[in-house]
């Protein structure tokens, strides 16, 4: 809110509600002080309880809503939720360091051996 300034505690509650209405879901991620931009909501993630990840709206797999590259980076970079890819947040921060463009460098994303 740029020109409307919450002064007392009640006003701050309005402001928090307003931000909650418009902000992206940040799930369990740590907020970075350096990175001011908000994390976007990873579409198809299980946090959203919507189809797209495992099955499509008809219960099949033909209409999955995201290309696999998108799913890969959504789960790996955008979310700490346990998923079927290595997690960037705590265990494998360098997994895609050699893959700057998924469409070209996908071969550099290797299998993780625990």
């Amino acid at each position, binding site marked *: 809110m740029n020109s*409307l300034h919450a002064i*007392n505690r009640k006003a701050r509650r309005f402001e928090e509600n307003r931000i909650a209405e418009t902000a992206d879901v940040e799930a369990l991620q740590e907020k970075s002080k350096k990175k001011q931009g908000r994390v976007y909501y990873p579409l198809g993630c299980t946090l959203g309880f919507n189809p797209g990840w495992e099955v499509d709206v008809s219960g099949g797999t033909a209409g999955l809503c995201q290309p696999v590259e998108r799913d890969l980076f959504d789960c790996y970079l955008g979310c700490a939720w346990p998923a079927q890819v290595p997690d960037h947040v705590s265990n494998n921060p360098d997994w895609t360091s050699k893959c700057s463009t998924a469409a070209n460098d996908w071969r550099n994303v290797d299998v993780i051996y625990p």
Partner: protein
Amino acid sequence: MSSAVMDMTSTAYRPAEHHAFETSGRDFLYLVPSGAIFGLDGLSKQIFSLLLKEQLPREELVSALVGRGYDRTEIEATLDDMESCDVIFSGAPKEAFPSLPEPDFPLQRIVLNTTNQCNLACGYCYEYSDDKIAQTKDKPKYMSEEVAQAAIDTLIRESAGRPLLHVTFFGGETLLNFNLMRFAVLYARKRAAEVSKDVDFSLTTNATLLTEEIVDFLAENRIGVTVSIDGDKELHDRMRTFHNGKGSYDIIAPKIKMLLARHKTNSIGARVTLSSGVRDVRRIYDHLTKELGFQGVGISPATANPDRLYHIGGQKMDDVFDQFSELAWEYRDYALRGGQHYFTNVSDTIKELHSGISKAYTCGAGLGLLGVSTSGGIAACHRFVDSPVAQMGNVLDEGVDHTARRQFLEDHHVGSRPDCHTCWVRPVCAGGCYHESFINHGQTAASNLNQCDRIRGWIDLCLRIYGQIAVENPAFLERFNEN
């Protein structure tokens, strides 16, 4: 707001009900009924001032502001912010009052009138003077242990999931029945522990009976103390006398110093009652803080029917409020320097403004608080015990009369006080003290109209002080953050 009522279905934007104020060169809105305080500048200020002149549909409003050079996206976002925060609205207005509480609203505090007797005969006392409403003739003079037990059991039974309960001791002169008070403290601690709750205590006293033994008990049990005192010897002794007419100042002054020196475990405040001959607010405040050492002074005019000699009439009351204002600005000066000022009329109001309280009721009477008389009679608060009105059962019989309590809450809800419906100060005032109302108007649910202008003036003043502190020394307000 009449235009809003007439045009319920309009999709045009309108300003919400509010009180605008300016301080430190900035513009603020106090919103009604939410109690939220927002600062406006730039675009939001432009939008609000346009809507104050005329209601405008969104597209017209946007066009007007684009014409003034603002960016369309920014205008749209600001409009959404303002609508979401109830600063402006379109369509039907939102609810103008907080809703009625749940029927079984849990109790938090009881006030035990340990005795209806007093060793003083203060001229303005609502329990003894011409405005007395309590009928104590056939009632026990002192509360028994049986009644105190039943009252504490009632508090615990009616408190639902509240983790912290409060017991306040009141009189007459509370310490005339110190033994009962000591018993009740120990009993309440034991009962509260059995149900894993905490309990704390406070008392009001005229200080005449304080001894080192009593003060040590108060300190050991962390009991908050309010001392009724009206200033220096000359002022205090005008109204606060013994039955033989002798003033009580010389008796209490050394006892108060002893109390303040020995009791450090809870707050000790002075409560001043102003009357027609005792109105020198500055002199009273300075004496109580500098000479006696109080760190909290609350000052209030006596509750009195206008016919009483001690009633403070119009012009004199204006003078009292002028003196309140002077002390309030002094509070502001202290706050901006990070200092501590002891005028609790200001700090209590600022605490409410800071939280953004939106009251359905003036106070907790009948809601989270009940008063209990020496005979066990339950009333909305201590001021109504043993009176013909606001009665709600007896702790020795079936406890709280929930039907009577419910009726009281319906009758006294701010939504049931039509005189308050268009008043911007209702989130903090909600109509005023039921007892004052009964004394002045003969009914508990009438709004205290004789004080409205002064209350609005006082809250406006405190809002400006609050706004200035919020802008210039916001760290000072952190002390008001606890719930």
